């Protein structure tokens, strides 16, 4: 682990330095006194934008507005990162020194410094450079989610469940918000200069990363189709229990014409994860039969929100040894091992470790998962015999366990909700509600 003593000892002991940590040149004493810069930024309030404002702003792009957007991102992000750093600093000492958490702390500090020192942007060319900078940071921080999950799972004994879960929530919500702002600016820049986006390849109407006519049924169909094509060894960690071969159908009902403005990536992640869980449960419960009951997705158009209900017959909770054994369904979204004992399981931790050390990290998107299915098993980066995941006997595609908590964050951070209800012995219903922006012009 990191040596906490003076700088001289650290610089001498190069061999002891774990290879996954960035080198800390200053001693912790110096770090303490230099915290003043951070306090300065942390004392500022975040300037939040609503989804509506993002769309409105992005609709009529001019060079001037693009530069404005760039500088907003440049000045806003260090403030928010500073808040996160202060939050980390408030955690118990023993927690932040754990693997995973320490890594995230270093990453955030590095980002903070870089943003803080970045000069103002005044023209398109500088914006191009800024966009490159942003892309690099997004990339570097790809491993935050697994590292944080790993670190906090291990630290679970040192924190009350409430403190742990509320901390994780603040971190993840902030992360999503920052990435939304960043990616939105990147998308707007690309559109403005006429660059063809590699990410958003279809012709559906959008402003930046917000799809203004997001067709809910189409998104559900897309996720269902992708999951059908999923290789059968992915996500299996049942130690000898064979999952059924037949994948359940997804039936869609409800207000089928529903369209609204939303970040498509988020909606599809949520639906993807929920369908994934439902399929897994259904296949497991009905593994003896040749036909499996379908999963029913219901779309509802409410006055202020869009509702999606995913209803399966996968047995619900407390059904057998493989179904979630939690007191209440919402405990599945908890990172505390007190609420969700699976967090401390060796296989789970092993998977998180192995994924944390991978270059690409985990961005919590559908795209990255689908891509990973196509990669052959043995050509992973940073794998090999040192892979702790391999040592723990888990496959490359073993479950991380972040699908539900991340879906919960995605659903709730703009004011929506995600509720899980189990009909023990029969199946599970998950209700997602996402806010509807009224009359976007």
């Amino acid at each position, binding site marked *: 682990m990191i040596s906490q003593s003076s700088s001289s000892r650290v610089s001498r002991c190069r061999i002891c330095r774990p290879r996954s940590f960035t080198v800390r040149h200053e001693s912790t004493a110096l770090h303490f006194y230099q915290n003043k810069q951070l306090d300065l930024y942390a004392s500022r309030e975040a300037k939040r934008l609503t989804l509506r404002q993002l769309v409105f702003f992005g609709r009529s792009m001019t060079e001037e507005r693009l530069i404005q957007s760039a500088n907003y991102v440049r000045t806003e992000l260090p403030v928010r990162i500073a808040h996160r750093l202060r939050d980390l600093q408030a955690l118990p000492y023993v927690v932040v020194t754990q693997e995973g958490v320490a890594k995230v702390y270093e990453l955030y500090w590095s980002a903070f410094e870089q943003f803080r020192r970045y000069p103002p942007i005044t023209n398109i060319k500088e914006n191009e450079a800024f966009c490159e900078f942003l892309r690099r940071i997004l990339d570097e921080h790809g491993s935050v989610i697994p590292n944080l999950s790993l670190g906090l799972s291990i630290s679970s004994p040192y924190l009350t469940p409430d403190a742990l879960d509320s901390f994780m929530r603040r971190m993840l919500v902030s992360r999503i918000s920052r990435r939304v702002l960043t990616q939105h600016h990147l998308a707007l820049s690309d559109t403005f200069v006429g660059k063809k986006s590699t990410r958003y390849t279809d012709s559906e109407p959008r402003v930046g990363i917000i799809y203004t006519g997001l067709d809910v049924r189409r998104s559900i169909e897309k996720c269902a189709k992708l999951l059908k094509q999923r290789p059968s060894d992915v996500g299996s960690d049942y130690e*000898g229990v064979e999952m059924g071969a037949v994948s359940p159908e997804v039936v869609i009902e409800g207000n089928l014409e529903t369209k609204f403005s939303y970040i498509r990536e988020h909606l599809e992640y949520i639906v993807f994860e929920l369908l994934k869980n439902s399929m897994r449960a259904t296949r497991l419960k009905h593994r003896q039969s040749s036909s499996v009951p379908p999963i029913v997705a219901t779309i*509802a158009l409410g*006055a202020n929100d869009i*509702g999606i*209900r995913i209803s399966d017959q996968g047995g619900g909770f*407390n059904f*057998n040894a493989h179904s979630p054994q939690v007191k209440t369904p919402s405990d599945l979204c908890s990172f505390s091992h007190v609420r969700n004992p699976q967090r401390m399981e060796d296989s789970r931790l092993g998977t998180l470790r192995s994924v944390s050390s991978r270059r690409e990290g985990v961005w919590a998107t559908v795209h990255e998962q689908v891509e990973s299915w196509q990669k052959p098993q043995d050509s992973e980066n940073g794998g090999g015999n040192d892979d702790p995941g391999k040592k723990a006997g888990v496959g490359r595609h073993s479950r991380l366990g972040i699908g539900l908590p991340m879906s919960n964050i995605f659903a709730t951070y703009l004011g929506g909700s995600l*509720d899980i209800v189990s*009909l023990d012995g029969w199946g599970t219903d998950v209700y997602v509600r996402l806010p509807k922006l009224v009359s976007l012009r």
Partner: protein
Amino acid sequence: MNSRLHRPLTSISSRRGYITPRRAPAANTRQVTELLDKHASSPPRPLNLSALLSFGRPLTPESLLASVSYALEEIPKRLATRVRSIEALPFIVGTNPYVSNILSSYKQSFLWFATYPTPKTIEENANFAEMLEELVEIHANDIPTMAKGFQECARYLSPEEINQFLDGAIRNRISVRLIAEQHVALSRAFQSQEKACNFGVVNTITSPAQMVRMCGSFVSELCEATLGASPSIVIDGYPDSTFAYVPVHLEYILTEILKNSFRATVENHSRQSPATRAQSLPPVMVTLSPPPRVTDSACRSSNSSGSNSNVSTLSNFYSIRVRDQGGGVSSSHISKIFSYAFTTAGRSADSDSNPDAYDYGDSGDGGGPYAAQHVGGIAAIAEGVGGGGAGQGNLFGEITGKGLQTGLGTIAGLGYGLPMSRLYAKYFGGSLDLVSLEGWGSDVFLKLRCLDEAGDSAI
């Protein structure tokens, strides 16, 4: 004119040929006060369900007499608590005629129990049981009566006070009726030498599917009569499953839930013409799921005691889901639906002008199809207060059957259905939740504790 107001309040004067109404009713007599104090102060013996049921297993003359002795001890205690809690309400509420009628009715019943000599023989018990049964009938319409009273007192009581009072009162009432009905059932069974497994309040092979069909047909009739159409019910899950429960409780809860679902479904699809409406009404789906038994040999449940029975202790609840396409509950209403006396009946579909207004007030605004229900509801009350009971020719009278808890034979009206159903569900440790998919429909999740393994339930 003024002289009337100044007339002394302590005496009823007949000097001038008319009676001055008292403003403040008389206090309890000393006998009543002493009895109330005695019974309200000694805490009710914490009887649990298995103890209550034990009087019938096996049923012998001795156990029957033990049962009546128990009933005569426990019921007055609980009635005394009830009397005291009503007397603790604000004075002005107590002067409301509906409330004061309930109060005197309870006092009378309390006195009857408190002064009744304990039966020492089977014949004496038979008399007692007969009168006990009548008493239960007399109190059949308590809840609608109290509801009406509270409706009129809306400006003197906050919703929280009402909720709190009613929660306690209804819980108390359930206990009393359980004890009373158990004893009545035992007495009957003893007389007829019944050997069935379903005497007493608990039926070990209650069939939810059967109850759903029964309640469904009743609600369907009501719905057709009121709204002109009704949806069908589709039962899935495990329709042949049974469990141990108090059938009348389940009956009440299912009826209320189905009433809501049926009403919502019809109202939501009311735009269509009546001719096609019947075919196009989406059915109400009821899914039945008995408590899962873990038989997996790979069971590594953390609760496992290492025994080979492999029976899951994580869930001994029977689950029922009622799913409708009634349009859901709007977000402005969702926090209120478990509040007593909140109802959307009686308002026209377009009058969401003040969605935050509770329908607490003295709303005699009988517009729309529910006007009859208000009348029916009041008719039910009026009969009940006078000491009538079931089958008195009420237009929407009480459902027949043994000891149904309330006289609410209306499709919608007083707004007590959901909160009371939830209380009933929670009584033995279960739950009732409603999840709404606004714009599409609602799901009600009912979880009921299986009473064969719930002996430790405190009642």
